[in-house]
């Protein structure tokens, strides 16, 4: 589905991504782990089109999209959420999601009929709000939601773009602990119904081990490990990078 080939990215003299390669298949949920500053968010930005790689390629379904602007990548089937929620604060919750559906349907440029008169987009938007438990807020402004609901709406918007490849940047940060697994269940169920490939960036190890089929560890701009969660987590190098401990005293975690 998504293939990243020898990607390099520098900011000024500082090389943040130092030749990263991986691929993610359809229906796969892959977690990307790594300490702060390892380049995870840069990686998300490179795939979503917010940044372009200096060298190397990003391919989606075999097509090179390394230099495509974001709107083309979205059309090609990539969507992302944001670690720090990014909403349309002065639009209604319904409009936030419906805008995404207009984007998928290629109707963003329609300028005569009122948005509310587009039945199909409106119904689908309401369905998505229903799935994410936001339906009762549909007429509230984005800024009126609680922090947790904002985060969920942020993810719902990415999902509304009907992606083939979904990037989730810490989808449960800011969500109440009791809600975290419910939110993840919702997302993962919705994703799997569509066969979407997913890359998820997450610090919460419980979530990673529950939902990810594969784990990649990014450290100092390079892939340190890539494999099944249990095996990767047991590797000594990974333990040291992620938790700053040698495996001897890993018991404490």
């Amino acid at each position: 589905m998504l293939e990243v080939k020898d990607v390099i990215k520098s900011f000024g003299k500082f090389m943040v991504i130092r030749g990263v390669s991986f691929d993610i298949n359809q229906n796969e949920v892959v977690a990307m782990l790594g300490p702060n500053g390892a380049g995870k968010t840069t990686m998300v930005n490179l795939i979503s089109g917010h940044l372009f790689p200096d060298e190397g390629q990003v391919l989606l379904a075999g097509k090179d999209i390394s230099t495509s602007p974001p709107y083309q990548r979205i059309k090609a089937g990539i969507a992302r959420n944001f670690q720090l929620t990014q909403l349309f604060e002065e639009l209604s919750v319904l409009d936030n999601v419906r805008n995404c559906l207009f984007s998928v349907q290629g109707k963003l440029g329609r300028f005569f009929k009122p948005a509310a008169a587009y039945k199909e987009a409106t119904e689908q938007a309401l369905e998505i709000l229903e799935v994410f438990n936001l339906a009762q807020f549909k007429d509230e402004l984005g800024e009126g939601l609680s922090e947790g609901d904002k985060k969920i709406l942020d993810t719902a918007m990415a999902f509304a773009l009907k992606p083939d490849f979904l990037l989730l940047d810490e989808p449960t940060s800011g969500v109440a602990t009791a809600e975290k697994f419910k939110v993840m269940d919702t997302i993962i169920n919705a994703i799997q119904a569509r066969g979407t490939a997913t890359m998820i960036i997450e610090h919460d190890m419980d979530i990673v081990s529950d939902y990810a089929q594969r784990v990649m560890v990014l450290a100092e701009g390079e892939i340190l490990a890539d494999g099944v969660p249990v095996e990767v987590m047991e590797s000594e190098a990974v333990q040291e990078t992620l938790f700053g401990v040698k495996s001897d005293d890993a018991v404490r975690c």
Partner: protein
Amino acid sequence: MKNFLFTPRAAVYAGIFIVLLLLPKMINAYHLSLVETGLSLAIMALGLNLLLRYTGVLSFGIGAYFAAGAYAVGMLNMYWPEYYTFETAILASILVSAAVSALFGFVCVRHTRIFFSILTLALSMLLFAVLEKAYHITGGSDGIRIPIPTFFGHEFEGMRRFQFLTGPYYYILLGIFSASTLIMLAIVNSPFGKALQATRDNELRAEMIGVRVRRFRWYAFVIAGTFSGLSGGVWCFVSGHITPEICNWVFSGEVVYMVLLGGFMIFEGPIVGAMLFTYLRLYAVAATEYWMLIIGATLVILVLLLPGGVTGGLYDLIERFKPKGRAKAGAEVKHA
């Protein structure tokens, strides 16, 4: 659209439209010509507010496109008088202002916030300089006279200007104003309008759901410019004479004032503002040679005390008497 016909808003619109239709029977010619000025300027104010309220950028040079529209009419009469009719004049004003705003907009939409405002201001002064300096082409600071045109073959020969203005022209203008208002209302509620508001609220997210932010902002710029051009096109017949002053940034500043006076948070605010400003300015100029002092003072007071403008203030007042709507009124004040 079908739903719109049965809302209270539609009823209010219909009521106001009927009053406007009967207006020539109710007020004298002098006041009617003022209403005509207000209606013409309202079209521009709606255009400006598409940028300010719905796209989130403040143009301080909207007068450039107003001037482009007005000069298109004036120069059509100067150079191709055989084609000078109302229809061709309006068509020319729309096309020329769209072209100018497309060109200027291309440079401006790469920026937002203060830089956008400075650039729009500077570019309008560029056009101002051209209009003023190219004396033999544009008439320089003397300006151009705008004669009474024919209207779909109908001649108004022998009619005095005020007879034309207070008679047939009022209804033509009212028609164009109503159509413009409905078109703008449709635009701001359409998917395109919602996408613009998305770019206003969060440019990054808009880009990441697939909105081509700069391009959409450019479209909004051209629509706003074209509305201003149309406004200039219909206004120049009312004034009968145009000078480069309509392209000066001070005039653009007055248009921004109009929009805030009426209240830019509410769709109809700019229309109210254009009407009020026309009267305010006229009375100030008639009352004293220090009219700028009066306009300036009202502006300062408005900004300090009534940031929601007249319609925003009324809205809050109404909400205050509706116990349930209290929270909402608060929200309105916060944006304003």
